[in-house]
């Protein structure tokens, strides 16, 4: 058994593609400096895209429209099912249609501040600039955004901002945006420009002579592992929230693509930055397989409270007004129930830790619509939140029009991911990461309605512009065939790993290990972290890993549709990633965004960021399983938005 709690520090991480000059000119400058590929030569280039969510679907469609030959993969039975589909609330764009003082600069400012000063200014500004084009693009595709009676687009205000810049399609914005990208991708599949492989999962990255040249993937129906070669590889495989077992991610969302790429040389940045979403439905018991998010748009009209007294078990309607603690309104009078996600989540944890939580196990707080119903009438509340209320009632069997909703925070999004430069290229030349898979633009905390914006910005606009430069500079690569010895070796590696999993024939199921790891991570690397807790987790994870390889039981064979084998193989990677997350959390001895270190707080109990020591992105280099990794620091420079302690009081 090998383990680590230490690391070595290597050369600083440098973004060699980052342009200089005024921030609003950098994206234009980079696009002008980037080399282009002659349209006639594009079809000679093959690009692999892994994943078909907002980032991957948009990238596959757009690269194919430009004339590249795209080979695309998803583990789902159809590209339309990627988990972007479950995003509810909306997508931000600095259109300023409301004339309420919004601008590209304000969206840029809000995102850098919301990210608690751990994001790159250049990237975030580009994101804000592109946000405007995304809405145009989606409307042109037929995305049915909500509209006003005059026929123009409606917007609303969303989590932690004071302008109405969020475009939405009822509570199904992610679904509608994803179907737009899926339909654009479908058009390219029909045209023969995209070779689509559904039910096919990437299991390794092929690196030849230091460049990404393909992937190893398994056909989940036949069980056959195969190699696919290309001139560049794009990972759009989403986040790693399922390390926690219970999260709002889809059941099969996984970290294998990014972790395997990490093992092959791609640095992993800020793995400890995970977002705990404040408004999810509390768990009901040990059988719980996943958690369901309720859109945080509910916080626009719902009021969050717990009883003032500890252990008050009266039903909510029997607790008089003066015995309720509307704690967000009390602690943060100017933002109230609309404080950013990390603050709302931690406040909920604090009141529950004090013994004032409600519902089963005291792990919940009320989100009450009684005032909203009195103010606007039931019909208006129904028009705004009807589908969310229905969903809540279906899951809990309680009527939120009559009884306050019960909510509790849950793992929702991972801001960390593969380190990328301004071009979205990882530290492995020819390997790009887009969407939630990269560490990108959200710093230590993502604002509501910004994930959809980033996924589509990367997929439709950023990557298709920057990947040209890489391909133009590497025009005549030696052809790599599936017979190439390195390719064969990587295929054999994957097959060996799968065979090993099947061979153990132990006495514990894949889910039992996943649940054990998840509980450990939630306890020690969840909403609040301490040095001693993280050290405990770092001691325990290698033990679970060792036990896993001794006791795992995977029925069936590798040459068939085998969902247990899929699960077990993903857990292998979670068991390594979890360790890096804990180490990253341990080394970052500050509180910032989604990462709250108990040792680093103000006398009032608020998060204390330490810019003097930690104003950098931590990019980790893999050195071996259970071996101390190497840290490469990318210093973050703030020329436009000057770091202040966030204040939402």
């Amino acid at each position, binding site marked *: 058994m090998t383990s680590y709690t230490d690391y070595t520090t290597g050369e600083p991480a440098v973004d060699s593609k980052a342009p200089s000059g005024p921030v609003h000119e950098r994206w234009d400058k980079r696009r002008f400096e980037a080399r282009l590929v002659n349209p006639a030569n594009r079809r000679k280039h093959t690009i692999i895209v892994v994943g078909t969510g907002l980032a991957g679907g948009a990238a596959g469609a757009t690269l194919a429209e430009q004339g590249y030959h795209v080979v695309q993969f998803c583990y789902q039975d159809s590209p339309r099912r990627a988990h972007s589909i*479950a995003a509810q609330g909306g997508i931000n764009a600095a259109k300023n249609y409301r004339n309420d003082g919004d601008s590209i600069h304000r969206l840029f400012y809000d995102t850098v501040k919301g990210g608690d000063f751990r994001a790159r200014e250049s990237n975030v500004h580009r994101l804000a600039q592109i946000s405007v084009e995304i809405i145009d693009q989606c409307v042109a595709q037929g995305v049915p955004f909500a509209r006003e009676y005059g026929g*123009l687009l409606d917007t609303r205000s969303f989590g932690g901002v004071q302008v109405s810049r969020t475009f939405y399609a009822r509570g199904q914005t992610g679904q509608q945006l994803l179907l737009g990208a899926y339909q654009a991708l479908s058009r390219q599949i029909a045209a023969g420009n995209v070779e689509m492989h559904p039910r096919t999962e990437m299991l390794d990255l092929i690196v030849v002579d230091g460049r990404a040249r393909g992937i190893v993937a398994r056909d989940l*129906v036949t069980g056959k592992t195969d190699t696919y070669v290309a001139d560049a590889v794009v990972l759009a495989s989403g986040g790693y929230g399922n390390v926690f077992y219970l999260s709002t991610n889809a059941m099969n969302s996984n970290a294998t693509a990014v972790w395997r790429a990490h093992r092959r040389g791609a640095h992993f940045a800020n793995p400890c930055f995970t977002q705990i979403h404040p408004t999810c439905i509390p768990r009901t018991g040990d059988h719980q*397989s996943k958690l369901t998010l309720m859109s945080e748009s509910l916080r626009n009209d719902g009021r969050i409270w717990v009883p003032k007294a500890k252990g008050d078990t009266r039903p909510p309607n029997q607790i008089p007004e003066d015995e309720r603690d509307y704690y967000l309104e009390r602690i943060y009078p100017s933002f109230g129930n609309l404080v950013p996600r990390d603050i709302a989540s931690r406040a909920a944890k604090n009141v529950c830790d004090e013994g004032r939580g409600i519902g089963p196990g005291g792990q919940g707080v009320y989100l009450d619509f009684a005032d909203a119903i009195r103010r606007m009438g039931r019909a208006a509340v129904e028009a705004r939140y009807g589908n969310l209320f229905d969903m809540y009632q*279906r899951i809990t069997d309680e009527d939120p029009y009559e009884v306050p909703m019960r909510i509790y925070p849950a793992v929702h999004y991972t801001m960390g991911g593969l380190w990328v430069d301004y071009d979205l290229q990882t530290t492995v030349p020819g390997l790009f990461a887009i969407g939630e898979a990269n560490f990108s633009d959200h710093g230590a905390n993502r604002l509501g309605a910004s994930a959809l914006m980033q996924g589509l910005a990367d997929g439709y606009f950023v990557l298709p512009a920057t990947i040209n430069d890489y391909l133009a500079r590497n025009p005549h690569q030696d052809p790599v065939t599936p017979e190439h010895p390195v390719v064969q070796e990587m295929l054999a590696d994957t097959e060996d790993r799968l065979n090993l999993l099947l061979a153990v024939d132990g006495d514990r199921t894949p*889910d039992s290990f996943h649940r054990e790891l998840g509980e450990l991570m939630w306890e020690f690397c969840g909403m609040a972290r301490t040095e001693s807790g993280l050290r405990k987790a770092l001691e325990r994870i290698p033990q679970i890993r060792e036990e896993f390889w001794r006791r795992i039981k995977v*029925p069936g064979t590798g040459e*068939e549709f085998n969902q247990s084998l899929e699960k077990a193989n993903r857990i292998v990677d979670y068991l390594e990633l979890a360790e890096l997350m804990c180490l990253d959390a341990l080394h970052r001895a500050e509180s910032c965004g989604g990462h709250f270190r108990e040792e680093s707080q103000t006398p009032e109990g608020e998060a204390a960021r330490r810019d003097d020591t930690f104003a950098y992105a931590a990019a980790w280099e893999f050195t071996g399983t259970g071996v101390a990794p190497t840290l490469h620091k990318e210093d973050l420079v703030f020329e436009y938005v000057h770091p202040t302690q966030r204040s939402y009081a």
Partner: protein
Amino acid sequence: MKLTLRVWRQKNADADGAMSTYAVDGISSDMSFLEMLDILNEQLILSGEEPVAFDHDCREGICGACSLVINGEAHGPERTTACQLHMRSFQDGDTIDIEPWRASAFPVIRDLVVDRSAFDRIIQAGGYVTAPTGSAPEAHATPVPKADADFAFEHAECIGCGACVAACPNGAAMLFTSAKINHLNVLPQGAPERETRVLDMVAQMDSEGFGGCTLTGECATACPKGIPLVSITSMNKEWLRAARKAGKR
């Protein structure tokens, strides 16, 4: 609760399948139907049997992956997806039959997992607006009447699960196909391809081996997203209009 499950087991597309009977105990009414199946599968693995394969992913009722016929009804007794069906809809001691979607256009891959790629090919035939990235005009250049936007949205809600096909005695895909056609054809952005879209998508649907529509209405009853039966009527109108226009040329 204690339940008896009769589950369709089929090794692969070529093998014969049969119903197998299993008992599960300790099922809570707060569990989702799929969490109940998780418990069955944990039991099966530990007893050395192969778990039941079934498609599922988001477990929030939006991805459209889950696809179970429960007691003869697509997605079971409630009007929702199987992942959002909860065990409180059942009684202690119940016997529950669980089968895959049954339709010749959806061949079984294993156990409860079927191949729905025919739906993707119907979309590929024309279920899109040709709007290459970067070519879009300013979003507010074309206002869309709210009634049209709402009509488009109502049809765009389809999650492509295939319950409509599974519920139809003819195995028809009319509700799925009409939902996409109505979503795009009512919008000004979809208007230029209005005729080719309906003709090509319907032709693809026919070639995939789905049955014909006899307006039985089972599809709309089973649809977890409430796509209305009149969707089919609207599509037929669109198709007639397009076919007559094409005939005139």
